[in-house]
């Protein structure tokens, strides 16, 4: 059985003729689904993205038979194509995407299958895409895949890859950075001695540590330690809270403690505190842009390689290696 999309092409033309509405589209949004538990969730999020950025959505559903095809024309806001892709090979998927993509519009790939870099279908589709988004914490909760992902990014500089597990940290990065915007606290950035980080899955913890270490030019020295020109920094990771969510981070520098933690009664709020010589009253900030639609949007708008992400990923991979050794 081969993936034949000629019927889909005809359905698209017919739907367009029947609706008569002018179509607005910003991209072709290709989504690979392979996990039964995640399929509904991924579709829901894809719908949210396509609602904001009108798209021709192509769902490659590897759980369903190749003969299953469905085209829905959504008024002026693009189309939704469901394609059964069970057993479809990498070249077949690439050819189908080629046939169905909108001309002159970027192709964005959201990869929500069980494997990432070890799956040849991923490379085939990612090569065809302007931007590719994967989710390492969705598929590999122990963070082991970060090393492979880092190697993949280095081997394929032509692919603009983003990981939702990393994008999810944007609010945290912003709030951590803000601790040190003040000239009084800026010096503490270079005298951090200890970091405690808590999350419901590993990828987010490795990423936040990788980001800090790469920005501050630390190197992974051994299990639970970084080395900086100023000395050793100890870190500890705590599995806590819901999966795929960072729950807290605490940075200690001398007598100062900079802490950010999810509010106990409100998962969308972060409480910030600074104790020690530069103490501040506790503040609360909204933990915005955590929904996947917003995260995907960030990746879509970027569409180029994110060097800070790549350096953070490389460092996360080093930390992982040192932890294992």
């Amino acid at each position, binding site marked *: 059985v081969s993936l034949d999309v000629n019927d889909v092409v005809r359905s698209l033309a017919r739907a367009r003729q029947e609706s008569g509405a002018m179509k607005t589209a910003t991209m072709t949004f290709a989504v690979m689904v392979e996990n039964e538990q995640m399929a509904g969730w991924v579709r829901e999020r894809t719908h949210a993205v396509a609602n904001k950025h009108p798209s021709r959505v192509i769902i490659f559903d590897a759980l369903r038979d190749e003969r299953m095809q469905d085209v829905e024309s959504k008024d002026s806001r693009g189309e939704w194509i469901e394609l059964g892709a069970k057993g479809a090979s990498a070249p077949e998927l690439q050819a189908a995407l080629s046939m169905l993509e909108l001309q002159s519009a970027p192709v964005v790939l959201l990869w929500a299958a069980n494997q990432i870099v070890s799956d040849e279908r991923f490379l085939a589709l990612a090569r065809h895409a302007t931007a590719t988004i994967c989710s390492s914490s969705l598929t590999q909760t122990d963070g082991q895949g970060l090393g492979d992902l880092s190697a993949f990014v280095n081997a394929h500089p032509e692919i603009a890859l983003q990981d939702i597990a990393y994008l999810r940290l944007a609010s945290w990065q912003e709030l951590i950075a803000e601790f*040190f915007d003040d000239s009084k606290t800026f010096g503490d950035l270079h005298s951090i001695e200890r970091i405690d980080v808590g999350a419901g899955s590993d990828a987010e913890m490795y990423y936040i540590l990788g980001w800090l270490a790469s920005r501050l030019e630390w190197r992974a020295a051994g299990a639970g330690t970084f080395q900086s020109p100023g000395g050793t920094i100890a870190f500890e990771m705590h599995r806590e809270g819901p999966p795929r969510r960072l729950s807290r981070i605490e940075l200690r520098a001398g007598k100062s403690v900079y802490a950010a933690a999810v509010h106990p009664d409100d998962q969308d*709020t972060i409480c910030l505190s600074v104790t020690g010589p530069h103490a501040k009253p506790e503040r609360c900030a909204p933990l915005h842009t955590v929904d996947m639609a917003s995260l995907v949007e960030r990746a879509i708008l970027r569409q180029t390689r994110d060097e*800070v992400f790549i350096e953070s990923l490389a460092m996360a991979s080093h930390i992982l290696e040192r932890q294992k050794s």
Partner: protein
Amino acid sequence: MPDAVATVSVDGQAENPLRAGLHTDRITDPCTIVFFGASGDLFKRMLLPAMYSLRMHGILPNDFAIVGFSRSDYSDDDFRDYCKKQLQEFAPKDQSVEGAIWEDFAKRVSYVTGEFDDHKAYGNLAKQLKENDEKLGTKGNRLFYLSTPPSVFPTIINMIKESDLNDQEHGWARIIVEKPFGTDLESARALQQTVDKAFRENEVYRIDHYLGKEPVQDIMALRFANTIFEPVWNRNYVQSVQITAAEQLGVELRGGYYDNAGALRDMIQNHVMNLLALVAMEPPSSSDADAIRSEKFKVLQSIEVPTHAAAPSISARGQYGAGSINGKPVQAYRQEPDVNPQSNTETFAAVKLSIDNWRWAGVPFYLRSGKRLAKKTSEIAVTFKPIPHRIYGERTDAIDENVLVMKIQPEEGIAMRFSAKVPGMKNHIRSVFMDFNYGTGFGVQSPPAYERLIGDAMRGDQTLFTRWDAVERAWEIVMPVLEVWQNTKDFTFPNYPAGSQGPDSSRTLFPQWRDL
């Protein structure tokens, strides 16, 4: 909001390395924003919800404070309760006014009671600002928002100066001045002289909420982020430009103000002139605020100021009489509350302007604005010249000119009229409209204008605020018409029924107005 790369200099010495590559909308400078006129309608309906939305969207800095200042007698707690009540009514329904974020927001809100010329009240304000710096980390940065009647602008600015609240030794001080900036050229210059004594131009944010609307900003994106429009955006291809700001509403509760203002002052001199500048300006060298504002000023400079003698022939005015809006009867302007029953104030104004520069010489720009018209519509319509030689279409077919319409409200989008062949054996030609709507195109609501503009002022981005030279020039352009209208009573008033297309005299000025 622009997705700016955040690179913050810490006291100008070293950059925070954690900021490299962070793409954030968050405003990084802590500050206190002082709202003068905090018990007023604008504050409760627009400004307070805008502040709360900025907070909920994670855009406000974490170290911020709000101080309300007005005559009403509130304690801090009373004012917080007042704010909560107003937010429950006017904030977007998906923004909860409960929980940790509200509690954090509320503890940053305080209030100072006083008359706008009361030295003691400004002393209390100074104490509050100092306390905010010490306890809430606002670092001496302050933004003053004048949301009061314009008559007290000079008093407040003078008192800010006399109380040294504009002192920039320990942070920055900025001021947002609501429109109207003056009631004529002379009063605008006098107000500017007062402003000059207290603030430098780069600290003054003259707000025109029209400029915060997404479709207005999209005028520049359409022109300068596409290549297909700019080559035809000139006298060789454009026949005329129509700018319309039409309202169905009457003067509502603003009769007292409006009867001293009129449509020319209230809309044409500011909103509509700003639209004209955006549509006619030369491409700026960058997106820098001054690059854009300089181009806007340059095009206003190129507008020929009409003489008093020419004013009647390039303008039309009207005042609405009784009529009906959406099938419901409405009263005449002269019967509105706080309006003089013999009022000579225009509720409709139309003006024809010429831009004397290389790009636009000979292209008329028609501007109109009015109240109680058939439809609420704000748009810019660029009509292109007819085809030079006809080869298609049956002899009876009308081949319309191409029209590009930038729709500002209530619809937000772009429409293009072009000719297409009707399917069939004959070569019939018909006009078709290609209609792009932001709402259905992108599936999201544009952020409210005040949210965008307050955020920009806190960032120090003046792009969407009007520079003094442009304000002054806009007054210079409208003054001859204004003076002629002030000095000659129009005995035909009321000359258009509510719910109509406006007075017949506007059709005499320009027969091709697009129907509302």
